């Protein structure tokens, strides 16, 4: 699968938050989008997934050459897109496992419940999610770290073709960042998932090997390249890119 974002413009309340972004992601590739708070990263991610309030005023989003702008989020998910939320919402009374089961049935055919349960259990162990997930409501009462891990767990179970992970590292302690990063890598390799990691810390990148790094500022991509960009960022900060 190929995800292409072409000259995308997205306003919120009349103010342009994403202002002409271009991006091309192939299945299996690892991309990183870095940028400080408010640079438009989350808006970009949510627009790609189809958040109804975010309506592009120009540009297009394509999957395998076909525009997906008219598709609702569920249809985009069924194409193989996934969004790991920065702030996963809590849904009262909806069992986490039940929900994952419904989601899996929605995006794939022939779901074997037993295998699915075994996968969830194994993935939860891999992610060092201590508490038993059975009987817990979707994200309700999850700690910040658990919520982030649960997003990665969902990615591992739903096996999308391209996943955008919005700050999978924020609010995690050092050990947890490592665990999350390693699991993201493993899922990506095992299921050939293309990744777009959105972050403003380079910490998580110590454990990852992105081929493409994009720097975003004021709704635009201001720099692109390989891993070397991260080092430059580390040394000189975002300022050095926005000045150019």
């Amino acid at each position, binding site marked *: 699968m190929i995800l292409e974002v072409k000259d995308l413009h997205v306003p919120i309340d009349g103010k342009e938050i994403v202002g002409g972004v271009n991006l091309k992601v192939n299945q299996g590739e690892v991309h990183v989008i870095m940028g400080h708070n408010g640079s438009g990263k989350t808006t970009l991610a949510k627009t790609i997934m189809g958040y109804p309030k975010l309506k592009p005023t120009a540009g297009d989003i394509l999957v395998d050459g076909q525009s997906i702008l008219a598709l609702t989020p569920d249809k985009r998910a*069924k194409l193989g897109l996934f969004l790991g939320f920065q702030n996963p919402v809590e849904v009262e009374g909806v069992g986490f496992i039940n929900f994952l089961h419904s989601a899996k049935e929605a995006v794939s055919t022939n779901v074997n419940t037993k295998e699915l349960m075994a996968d969830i259990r194994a993935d939860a162990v891999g992610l060092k999610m201590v508490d038993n997930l059975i009987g817990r409501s979707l994200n309700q009462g999850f700690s910040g770290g658990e919520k982030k891990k649960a997003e990665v767990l969902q990615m591992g179970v739903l096996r999308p073709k391209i996943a955008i992970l919005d700050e999978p590292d924020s609010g995690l302690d050092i050990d947890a960042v490592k665990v999350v990063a390693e699991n993201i890598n493993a899922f990506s390799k095992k299921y050939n998932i293309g990744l777009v990691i959105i972050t403003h810390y380079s910490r998580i990148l110590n454990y990852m090997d992105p081929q493409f790094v994009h720097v975003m500022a004021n709704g635009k991509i201001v720099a692109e390249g390989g891993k070397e960009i991260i080092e430059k960022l580390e040394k000189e900060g975002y300022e050095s890119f926005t000045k150019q």
Partner: protein
Amino acid sequence: MPENENELLGYADEEYKERYGFSDKTEYAYKTEKGLNEDIVREISKIKGEPDWMLEKRLTGYKVFKSKPVPTWGADLSGIDFDDVYYYLKPGGKKEDSWDKVPEDIKKTFDKLGIPEAERKFFAGAEIQYDSEVVYGHVRQELEKQGVIFTDTDSAIKKYPELVKKYFGTVIPPTDNKFAALNTAVFSGGSFIFVPKGVKVTMPLQAYFRINAEKAGQFERTLIIADEGADVTYIEGCLPADELVSRGDTFQRIDTIKKGDAVPTHTGRMQSVNRTFVHPHRGKLLEILPLSKGNGFKLTSEHPVLCIKRNKVIVKRQQRRNWKPEVSTTALLKANAEFVKAADLEEGDFIVYVAPTVISDDSQFDETALKILGLYLAEGSVSANRALRGIKMVSFSFGKSKKEGLLANELNSLIQEKGWKSSICRSKGGYYIVSSYAKELIRLCEDNCGRGAKTKLLSQKLMKLPPGKQKILLDYYWKGDGSVYIRFGKKLMRASTASRFLAYQIQEILARNGIFANLNVRKGSVDTILGRKIKRSDQYIIEYTEGKETGEVRRNGNRFYVPIKQIKTHYFDDLVYNFGVDKDESYLVKGFAVHNCTAPIYMSSSLHSAVVEIIVHKDAQVKYVTIQNWSRNVYNLVTQRAFAYENARMTWIDANIGSRVNMKYPSVYLKGRGASGEILSVAVAGENQIQDSGGKMLHLAPDTTSKIISKSVSKKNGVASYRGQLYIAKNAANVKSTVRCDALLLNKESKTNTYPYMDIQREDATITHEAAVGKIGEEQLFYLMSRGLTEEEALTTVVLGFLDPLTKALPMEYSVELKRLIKLDTTGSVA
């Protein structure tokens, strides 16, 4: 007789119309005039043969009803025309209603359920009969020993006049409100329960009396008395209680049938399953054993089965002694098969075995391949050779006779004809063995016939081949596993297999070839021979006589009419399954056609006004559960009240989904020290619906506790209101009370109100009252949809999650049912 398939389908449709396409006028065995006056009240009492004291109560009720105005403090009730209601109907044998009279929204509900129009007419009429006597009857047996009385109120008045006299109207006197008064005047049906001292009824007592046209009435009266230390749960259900249980349709267990699966229907064509049901069933279950006993199946007594009644097709000749009347083949073949309730089946009636007509050829199965597969079915197996690191091989074991040797050699050449390598050898015992490592051969066998003796199964591809091709496969199967007996100069073909499913498949293939084979089961056994335990598994025996139609079975196109040999009645207490099928609404159970069965709740009258009185004596416990799903033209005005004495415990679980206007506030009068009451209330207010519900707690004694939890969902222009009353009397010290009401709004137009009334006469009471209104968040929906759920699914998920604390409190099967109703209800609610 129709010859080709198309004609046959048309023929089936005709028959279908005939069965369901009626539109009769209402005919009642007894009906009072519209409207209400004293004479009608007297008449009702007279018809029922009631004693004078009951008539007196009715007349008091009538007077109060007349004197009280329609209450105006709650929902708008001005739409009720009391003069336009039949207050007593006793339906006769004929069905009610024409399809045109059915309100639009009901038709839509039927649409959502995917029920074809013809069938809707059937269900919309008064023919939805649930024989409550079955339920009552069974429970009575179980409980009589414990002294528990469980019967309908009409019978109770005659059989237990002292008890009824003592308690009737003491909890809810006719003077209580206009509708309780009306109920007192005209009530009919309802349940009467008496649980004696110390008796704990472990199973919930349930009544489906509402579906029964006669006992349902619009004004039923329920009275429950739990004597000291007793414990009982009562469930008032509006559930379709008539589901099927069986283990096979196209040889798949019915509980594993999923939405979207394709199944053959009574027409022989394939249709997909559009919904599945599961329900608890406690009571009678019928086992229908046709001539071919291996095809026996079980179902509930309401389940319609495609059938030709024997008495319609008998010859007009005098009956011979001890013989069943003889059947005229001409009449049988001319007769139209109809769907008949299982309860109405009799031994000797003909049920219909349908050979599926779906054909899809596949060129990979040439004559040679089919012959090989036939022999594989009989003699072959695939195993992994350990010595050769798990390399798979297929082997066929034949007997040691010369004939078997020839067959083995034929197989060997067949395999080589396909260009695969194989070898033939004789074992030490002299048995002929053909084996091969050819991957293509192994794949052919495994993919299409399975591996071991018990798990052999024909692939869907094989099952759909043209009958002629299937016959080749079968002939070679017969060569391997079968035996041929000559009886009366005719060939009796017989084969046996340990695979039950394979047996049904072979039967089906034979049927497609115009042969009805009998299926019988030889039970497995464990024998000890020379000190060794030999275990024999069940063997399924398929047999037919060549050139002769088996016994009394008659063939009509792709249908076989098979007589019922025996009908057994079983007691059953478990879940039963059923599913809906596109267009035909029927499916095949072990080859036999049955109809899907579901009964939406429909009432032609617009007023339902029941009264439920409960007395919970010292230390006793009662739990009363209602799932209300009346159609959207009903004013549901029900008075429910319980008296709880010392240390007694009363729980109301009240789920309101249906009706146009619902006003219902179950209440508990905490009359003895230490009594406690709990009300869990769920309301879903959809388009044009008003759900005005809640509860009342009256603390009339010290140390009493109460809890009300109410959750409501409003959508479109629906209005859900919580109306609660909390009263704490002067003498009621140390009262604890919790009230929590949460509301969820799905649209901008939907509304919710909270009306808490409190009258607290004590300083020392501990009272908490919380109320919260939530709106479905766009973020929540987006999150769920980003995982692949459609907007409707996401909405349903949020609603069910919100109601989860209450649905969890229901017995499992009821929570499943409630969730199903809510799901159906949220469809189409997305703006």
